[in-house]
C-alpha cells in the first residue's frame, strides 16, 4: 500500500488548516452559502436532507486496518455510529456537524486520509479494481497508476472548476470489475510487445444520459500517461458545455463533436502538453510501484479447504474468489444481509473488518463499487476462521452478485437530490427473494437502484435496474433490463410505465420468473435476456 512521505503529509495537513479556515469564515459570515458551497463540496461536505454529509476518500478503494479503525472512530465520535460505503469506493457519514468538520479532517490526516475532491466539479476519487494485486488476470497492479493520477489530480490548478464532476477508473484486466467504460475516463492498462501502456476510453457515464465511453486511444505509452490525461482534461475544460448543467459532462462533448474529433483535439493538445515536462521521471513511477509490491505470501501452504460445515461451504462458493497466489483466496464481505441498508456498516462492524484484515489479510481491505468490502489476501487455511468471525459480526451473508446483493443509493431517505426512496425498495426485494436457495438458483443477477436520474445507484448498468422518479408528488419506480457494468458494458432499456413500491417488487419477480422459464443451460439472467430479447420480459411484466 502507498505510504505518505513528508510531502504528501504536508499537503494533507495544509488542507486541514485550509478547510478549518474556510469553515471559520463561513461561520463568521465572511462568506455566503453560495460562495462556501463549492469550497465545501470540493472537500466532500454536502448539505443533505437531515444534516451535513461528509464523504471521505478511499483512494482506489484500498485501505489498511489503521485507516479502517479510524473510519469507525469517526462514525462513533462525530456521527451516529455508522457509515455508508459508496459506489465510488468511498465512505460517507450522514450526520456531520459543520463545526466538527475541521476536527474530523485532522483525525483523518493522522492516518493518511482526507476528503479532498470527493465532490465538486473537479477530478474525483480515482476508482479501480477491488481485486487489484490479487487477481490472476491483471497485466499489472493498476493501483500505482491510480495513485499517480491521485497525486496529479490533487489540487490541479487548471482543473478545479471543470464544467462538471470528473470520474476516472483504472483497471488492468480484460474482465472489468470497476465499470470502467461508464466513467468520464476509463483506463485499461495493457501490454504490447512487452511494454506497458494504457487504453483510454473517454466520455462514458450514467446519469441522465447514459453513454458507454468510446475508445479514444488504444495504447498510450506509460511514460505519457499524465500528459495524455492532461490533454484529455484540457480539451474538456475548454470546450465542455457550461450552458446547461445536464449537458456539461464530458460524455456530451464527446458525443456532440464525435469521438474522432475529440481524439483529434486531444492528440493536438497532447503534442503540445508533452513538451511541458509534466510527466514524472521513471524513478517516481518506481517509487510508487514499490509500495504495491505483493505482500510476503507463504509458499507451499495448503490449497485445500475443509468444506464439511455446509453453511461455510455455501459462503465459500459464493463470496470467495480465486487468488493469483496458490494457497490464498479473495474474500468478499457482503454488506447486504437481508434487511440491511446496502453499504451501511456500524462502527463495530467496521472495527471487526479492520481486525480481521490485520490478522488474516496482510492488513489490507478494499471497498468495492458494489458497496461491499474485500479482504484481498486470505490464506485458504484461514478461511474458516475468517468466516466464523464474520458470522459473529453479522457480516457473513453469502450473496455476492446474487439478486439481494443490491447496489442502492441513499435515495430520498437521506439525499437532497433524490426523487424517491431507494433503500426501502432494496429491502423489500431482498426480503421477497430471501430464500438463499432461490437466490442461488437465479444465479448472478445484478440489481441496482437509483433514487433519481443522477444514477448514483448505477441503475443503467443493472441487469435489472430500478429508477425512482417523482410522479405528481408520489414515489414511482421505473424498471429497466439488460444493463451491465462489466466488460460487456451495456445500458439497460426501460420496460414501460413505472410502479409503486410494492408493484416494482412484483415486477422484478415477474422478470425473474420469466427468466427461469426461458433460460437454457447455465445461462445467467443477462445471457437469457440478450438471447431472447426484451419483448418476452415486457410481456411478462405488463401482460
Amino acid at each position, binding site marked *: 500500500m502507498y505510504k505518505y512521505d513528508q510531502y504528501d503529509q504536508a499537503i494533507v495537513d495544509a488542507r486541514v488548516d485550509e478547510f478549518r479556515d474556510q469553515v471559520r469564515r*463561513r*461561520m463568521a459570515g465572511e462568506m455566503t*452559502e453560495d460562495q462556501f458551497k463549492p469550497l465545501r463540496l470540493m472537500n466532500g461536505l454536502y*448539505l443533505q436532507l*437531515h*444534516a451535513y454529509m461528509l464523504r471521505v476518500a478511499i483512494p482506489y478503494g484500498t485501505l489498511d486496518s489503521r485507516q479502517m479503525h479510524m473510519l469507525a472512530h469517526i462514525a462513533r465520535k462525530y456521527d451516529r455510529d455508522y457509515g455508508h460505503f459508496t459506489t465510488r469506493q468511498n465512505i460517507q457519514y*450522514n450526520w456531520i*456537524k459543520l*463545526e466538527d468538520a475541521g476536527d474530523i479532517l485532522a483525525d483523518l490526516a493522522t492516518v493518511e486520509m482526507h476528503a479532498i475532491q470527493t465532490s465538486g466539479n473537479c477530478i474525483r476519487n480515482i476508482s479501480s479494481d477491488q481485486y487489484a494485486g490479487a487477481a490472476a488476470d491483471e497485466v499489472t497492479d493498476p493501483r500505482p497508476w491510480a495513485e499517480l493520477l491521485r497525486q496529479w489530480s490533487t489540487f490541479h490548478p487548471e482543473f478545479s472548476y471543470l464544467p462538471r464532476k470528473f470520474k476516472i477508473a483504472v483497471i488492468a484486466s480484460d474482465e472489468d470489475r470497476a465499470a470502467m467504460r461508464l466513467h468520464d475516463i476509463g483506463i485499461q492498462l495493457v501490454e504490447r510487445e512487452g511494454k506497458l501502456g494504457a487504453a483510454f476510453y473517454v466520455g462514458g457515464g450514467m446519469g441522465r444520459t447514459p453513454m458507454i465511453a468510446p475508445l479514444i486511444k488504444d495504447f498510450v505509452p506509460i511514460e505519457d500517461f499524465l500528459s495524455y490525461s492532461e490533454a484529455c482534461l484540457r480539451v474538456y475544460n475548454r470546450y465542455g458545455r457550461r450552458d446547461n448543467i445536464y449537458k456539461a459532462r464530458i460524455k456530451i462533448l464527446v458525443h456532440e463533436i464525435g469521438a474522432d474529433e475529440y481524439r483529434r483535439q486531444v492528440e493536438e493538445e497532447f503534442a503540445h502538453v508533452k513538451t511541458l515536462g509534466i510527466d514524472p521521471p521513471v524513478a517516481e513511477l518506481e517509487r510508487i510501484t514499490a509500495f504495491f509490491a505483493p505482500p510476503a505470501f507463504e509458499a507451499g501452504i495448503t490449497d485445500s479447504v475443509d468444506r464439511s460445515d455446509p453453511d461455510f461451504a455455501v459462503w465459500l462458493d459464493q463470496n470467495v474468489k480465486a487468488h493469483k497466489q496458490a494457497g490464498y483466496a479473495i474474500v468478499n464481505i457482503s454488506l447486504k444481509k437481508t434487511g440491511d441498508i446496502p453499504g451501511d456498516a456500524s462502527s463495530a462492524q467496521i472495527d471487526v473488518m479492520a481486525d480481521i484484515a490485520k490478522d488474516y489479510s496482510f492488513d489490507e481491505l478494499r471497498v468495492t463499487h458494489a458497496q461491499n468490502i474485500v479482504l484481498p489476501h486470505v490464506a485458504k487455511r484461514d478461511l474458516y476462521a475468517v468466516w466464523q468471525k464474520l458470522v459473529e459480526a453479522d457480516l457473513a451473508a453469502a450473496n455476492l452478485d446474487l439478486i439481494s446483493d443490491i447496489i442502492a443509493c441513499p435515495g430520498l431517505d437521506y439525499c437532497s437530490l433524490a426523487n424517491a426512496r431507494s433503500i426501502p425498495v432494496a429491502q423489500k426485494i431482498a426480503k421477497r427473494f430471501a430464500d438463499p436457495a432461490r437466490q442461488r438458483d437465479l444465479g448472478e443477477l445484478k440489481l441496482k437502484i437509483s433514487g433519481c436520474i443522477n444514477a448514483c445507484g448505477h441503475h443503467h448498468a443493472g441487469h435489472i435496474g430500478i429508477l425512482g422518479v417523482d410522479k405528481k408528488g408520489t414515489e414511482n419506480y421505473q424498471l429497466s433490463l439488460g444493463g451491465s457494468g462489466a466488460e460487456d458494458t451495456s445500458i439497460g432499456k426501460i420496460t414501460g410505465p413505472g410502479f409503486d413500491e410494492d408493484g416494482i417488487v412484483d415486477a422484478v419477480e415477474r422478470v425473474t420468473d420469466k427468466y427461469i422459464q426461458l433460460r437454457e443451460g447455465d445461462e445467467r439472467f443477462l445471457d437469457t435476456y440478450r438471447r431472447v430479447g426484451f419483448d418476452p420480459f415486457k410481456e411478462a411484466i405488463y401482460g
Partner: protein
Amino acid sequence: MKLLTGNDLASGAVTWWTGSGWSLHVEDAADVGDQGDSILATEEAARRVNAPYIIDAVATPQGPRPAHIKDRVRALGPTVRLDLTLKPADPAAGNWVI
C-alpha cells in the same frame, strides 16, 4: 399554508420557523403567509439558518404537514432508520411520510 424551513448553520439540523425562532419540530412551524421572503432574508443574513426556503404545507390536527414528500422526510428523519428520527418510539412513523 406556507412554512419556512432550512438547516442550522453549525449542526446542519433541519429547522422550522416558529414565528419567533427556529424549532427542530415541524409541529411548531408557523404559517408565514406572504412574509416568508423577508423573514428568510433576515434570518439567513444573521446566520440563524442556512439554505432556507419556503414550502407549501397543509394544516392538520397534528400540525402542519409539508406538501412535498422530501420535506416530510426532512421533518421526520430517514424512514429506514426510525431509531434516528425524531419519533424513534413510533414504529409506524414512516407512514406519515408517504
